[in-house]
């Protein structure tokens, strides 16, 4: 039943984009991390579905990695960090929420406009996947750019990485080794960033990156 396969894959990838928009909308750190966990769960489902369609068992391992690391370990670590850093307050955004939502919509339109003509002739499942994955990547970047809080920049970075995994699994043929090493590099990045966050907090009593700029004597 190819039509159903396609619809389910499309729905899962679409919900990733939708969850990215939710992150863009979210003002509270705790909720943001929850959405990130959900994002990773949906990613795991999507990857598992791809494994089922393509009949590639090693993608199940990818899905399991996504589920364990990105949906459970990383959000727990982030939540712990938030508690230890004592930052429950709202996130300061650079632009208004509405404006960044509009920008996100524009980015989705852009990635559709770029990717659909570029991948003409490819398997339709992969086509849609890649277009949606590019939207997730772009919205992740937008999240990093429009937030001033360092933790939310980390969240943006992680969601960006989810988009890359989505594209890679859709494209049929990413070796398992690559996926595993990417997962580990993400973990290491998280550790490094976590250490840095604590160091920054120790020094400046805040994780608002504006403080760093003030320290460097920058005009804004």
């Amino acid at each position, binding site marked *: 039943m190819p039509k159903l396969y396609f619809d389910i894959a499309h729905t899962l990838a679409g919900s990733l984009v939708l969850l990215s928009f939710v992150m863009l909308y979210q003002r509270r750190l705790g909720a943001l991390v929850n959405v990130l966990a959900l994002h990773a769960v949906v990613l795991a489902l999507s990857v598992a579905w791809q494994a089922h369609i393509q009949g590639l068992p090693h993608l199940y391992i990818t899905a399991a990695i996504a589920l364990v690391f990105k949906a459970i370990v990383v959000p727990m670590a982030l939540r712990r960090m938030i508690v230890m850093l004592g930052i429950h307050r709202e996130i300061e955004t650079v632009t208004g929420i509405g404006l960044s939502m509009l920008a996100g919509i524009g980015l989705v339109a*852009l990635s559709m406009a*770029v990717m659909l003509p570029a991948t003409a002739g490819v398997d339709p499942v992969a086509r849609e996947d890649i277009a949606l994955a590019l939207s997730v990547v772009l919205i992740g970047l937008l999240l990093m*750019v429009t937030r001033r809080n360092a933790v939310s920049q980390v969240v943006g970075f992680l969601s960006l990485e989810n988009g890359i995994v989505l594209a890679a699994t859709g494209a049929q043929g990413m070796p398992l080794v690559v996926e595993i090493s990417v997962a580990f590099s993400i973990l290491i990045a998280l550790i490094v960033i976590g250490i840095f966050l604590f160091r920054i907090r120790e020094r400046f009593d805040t994780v608002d990156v504006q403080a760093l700029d003030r320290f460097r004597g*920058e005009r804004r």
Partner: protein
Amino acid sequence: MLTALLLCAVALLAVSVLAVLGYGGGRRGVAGGAVATTLVYGGCLAVSALAFVLALAALLGGVTAGLTVPLGLPWLGAHFRLDALSAAFLVLVTLGAAGASFYALGYGQHAEAPMRVLPFYPVFLAGMLLVPLADDAYAFLLCWELMSLASWALVLAEPRPEENARAGYLYIVMASFGTLALLLAFGLLAGPEGHYAFAEMRGAERTPLTSALVLTLAILGAGSKAGLVPLHVWLPLAHPAAPSHVSALMSGVMTKVAVYAFIRIVFDLVGQPEWWWSIPILTLGGSTAALGVLHALMERDLKRLLAYSTIENIGIVFIGLGLALAFEASGYRAAAALALTAALFHAFNHTLFKSALFYGAGAVLTATHGERNIERLGGLIHRMPVSSAAVLVAAMAAAALPPLNGFVSEWLAFQAILVSPDLPQWGLKFLIPTVGMLLALAAALAASCFVRAYGIAWLGRPRTAAAAEAVETDRFSSAAMLGCAALCVLFGLFPGLVIDALAPVTEGLVGARMPAQLGQAWLSIVPIADSRSSYNGVLVFLFIVASAMMAAAAIHRFASRALRRAPPWDCGFPNLSPSMQYTGTSLSQPLRRVFGPVVFRSREHVEMPLPGSVAPARIVRQRQDLVWEFLYLPIGRAVGRATEVLNHLQFLTIRRYLVFVFLSLVLLLLGLGLWS
């Protein structure tokens, strides 16, 4: 034979390593330096002499060979090839290298810091030896850069801090620019599939626009190395800054390697030329010849004067190349062969006489403890008779006087210009005679330039104590100079030897050759046909000798032979001193008055002292280098402003950088979306 030549290059590199090891492991200090000097230059001399024999045999024997060495890029390897063109230039390179190494056996012993020269000198030679052999873009550019960087190190070798630092900086900037242009040219030639081997470039199809771009980049890349105006600014600074034997190599040989690169790209790799390609080359060649010699006429620094004269000669070579392109594009293959032969012959001649002149300048530097200003020299012909005789012959060749070799090649260029009315394009019918006028002007000015240089520095009475105490140079240096001068005479008397040796080159490039010269009666040379024109060096030589002897005999017959000593007419000044002689500045004043206001925007005014003051009156001369002022300074200012603006980018916040990354990504995607 190709393998042997490549081994020669490897041997040169080994000599460089040995120089460092030998100096480091052996006795340090003056004695160790002297031993290392002899070893390095002796080794270079042996290797280049061997390579010269090989290259000459390859040229005369018509050897063509290819070889792929598994070095360099892993899937490409390094291709090397020996054909007539590369063999001809290898003869030139190795001859210049052997001469310079022989000269340096004596001259190099005077170096203040030998280890700043010795390791780089063999590398420089190896680079110049490898460039004509390279048969793919990667190997070519690698060897080219080897040559550039080694010569850059040699420019910085002499301890004259601030002057050489500026020369070295300008040189490295211009050399990098030239290599960039060549890199882009090869990129265009290779096409989107990346065929970097020359063999694949030759057959490829190209649009006219691509070919024109390749031509432009070749002019920029090779021209900046050869010293085409307006890319010449580094040359008169960098060439004289190096030790004299290296100056001779840079002027006499390295510029020819650049000419080789130009010929290889434009005549060989690009394919069939368009007729209008000759217009920029002829224009640049003509203005280079005229401007180079005008600068040389104004110059007082002996080595810099020679460097400017190099620019002039490169202009003449490029005029020949432009003519050859014009004829080839219109199908006049015999005329194209004539023009190309003239260009190659002149390149060869220039190597000979410019090497001798730079050796002579080096001998003067050694004898006078570093005096380069011709206004402070004089009377050297009495103190250094052997080297002065060699320099005189070379200067006459540079001034294109018959029966020397410089005259023959310029005469051939004029013969090619005289054929130009046959061309169908009206633009060229007007342009080529104009270029011919510039060439004639350059030849005449070159003669006056060398009369001035020789007359002021070598004739007359010494103007300073340093010049008065000069002594003849060592035997190696004199022998090298005399050898070059003898070759100048030889190829002036028997130019047919060179012309016939160059025939396979022109056959390979333009598909025709000049008529065979060695069979002609009385050893004359005939460029096109007997009925049009011919030249006989031997007859001219005999005529000059006979008429000179007859004049001398007549004078001695009709005048008294008795030696009389009497005070000459002293214009009313009782005490004649050396400072009352003509100076270089005064000798070139009429020409400066004629050309100065236009070409250099020069001004002269007299500063009179106030009434009652005892200060002397002074003549103040000002001249500007218009190319420097209106091309290089604006570019320098623009780069400075741009860096100031871009400098702010170094101090942004992380979020700003992220914004830049994000925006550029979105912009690129937008462009991609709109493009399709």
